[in-house]
């Protein structure tokens, strides 16, 4: 599979409200009619939860930032792990779609390895632009949640709201090694919010959880 065709497998997640669809983050195909995103993107609730149907066939196409009309498919939460921040969504439609790639693990890459991530940065402002970021692995880390440790990698890139739930590819074999979950922040954050942004999250230490945990949930 060529990277530009990932456009058909990576989706924006949203929630239908009386005022339209609120964009929440990113999700990607992980099995037949199943997608992965983060638990925090969904808030643990699948009430009116949807994925937006992409308008482009390939990342080489122009994405019209003035076109605010969207079509969507309803999704339900079928599996959830709040410690690892992973949520599996099931599509509620009759067709069948499967990912054109496999899931692997962060075990297969190392600091310095090139990786490619996809997501919808600035979705908090309603921007619906599938964006590719090429970067490198900075570190392999274990991060705990309530004493439960899990494997992560650090990406040397700045991520923004809307990118949570985005897949991270190893371009050498086009496997998904992990899913973007957020950025390092010191305990409690900086305590200062400027224009909705915590300055302590503005850096190039982005956390990605290993895709092996997604596989365990399928």
């Amino acid at each position, binding site marked *: 599979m060529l990277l530009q065709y990932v456009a058909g497998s990576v989706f924006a997640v949203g929630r239908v409200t009386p005022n339209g669809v*609120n*964009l*929440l*983050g990113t999700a990607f195909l992980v099995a037949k009619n199943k997608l992965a995103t*983060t*638990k*925090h*993107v*969904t*808030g*643990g*609730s*699948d*009430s009116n939860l949807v994925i937006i149907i992409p308008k482009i066939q390939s990342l080489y196409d122009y994405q019209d930032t003035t076109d605010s009309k969207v079509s969507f498919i309803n999704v*339900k*939460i*079928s*599996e*959830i*792990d*709040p*410690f*690892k*921040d992973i949520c599996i969504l099931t599509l509620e439609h009759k067709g069948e779609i499967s990912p054109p790639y496999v899931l692997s693990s962060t075990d297969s890459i190392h600091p310095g390895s090139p990786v490619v991530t996809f997501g919808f940065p600035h*979705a*908090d402002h309603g921007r619906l632009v599938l964006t590719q970021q090429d970067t490198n692995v900075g570190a392999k880390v274990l*991060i*705990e*949640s*309530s*004493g*439960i440790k*899990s494997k*992560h990698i650090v990406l040397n890139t700045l*991520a*923004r*709201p*809307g*990118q*949570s*739930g985005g897949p991270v590819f190893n371009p050498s074999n086009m496997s998904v090694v992990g899913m*973007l*979950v*957020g*950025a*390092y*922040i*010191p*305990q409690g*954050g900086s305590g200062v919010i400027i224009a909705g942004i*915590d300055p*302590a*999250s503005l850096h190039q230490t982005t*956390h990605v*959880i290993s895709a092996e*945990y997604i596989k*365990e*949930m399928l």
Partner: protein
Amino acid sequence: MITLEEFIRQDINWLNALPEYQRKSIQQLLDQGKTYEEAAVIWLSANGPSNTHPFGTQNTKSIFFEKLLEEVESFFCRDDKYIEEKKQLLTQFKAGDVYVLTFISTAISPIVGASAPLIAPAIALILMTILRMGLNAWCSLRREIKQNSTQQS
């Protein structure tokens, strides 16, 4: 037909009704010495890895354990709540522990505003507490806690 009390008295390890990835995490909490209730609170309030700023656009907080506890209490201790669901459950209880846990979680999930897969482990942990105490004792304790909190406020 089996009664609700007979149903809850069955010697079932409700944690076995969970998918393996959830059971493993819950078991790790119990191995740390957490009680069933403490493990349920931690499960519901967990929001991913520590020291990580989430990049969803809303980053909603988890549901409160007390809200879920109240609904489980309504389900098992009150005759005027979940009437149809309980009838259905008691006729189909032989369908297995996974079915029963999914059924209860699905019935309660819209009321607490969370998906059934998220609250299922917490409900399994509450059921383990009820199993240990007995249904009548657990319902009495819940009534007592509520009365005390009403008198204090």
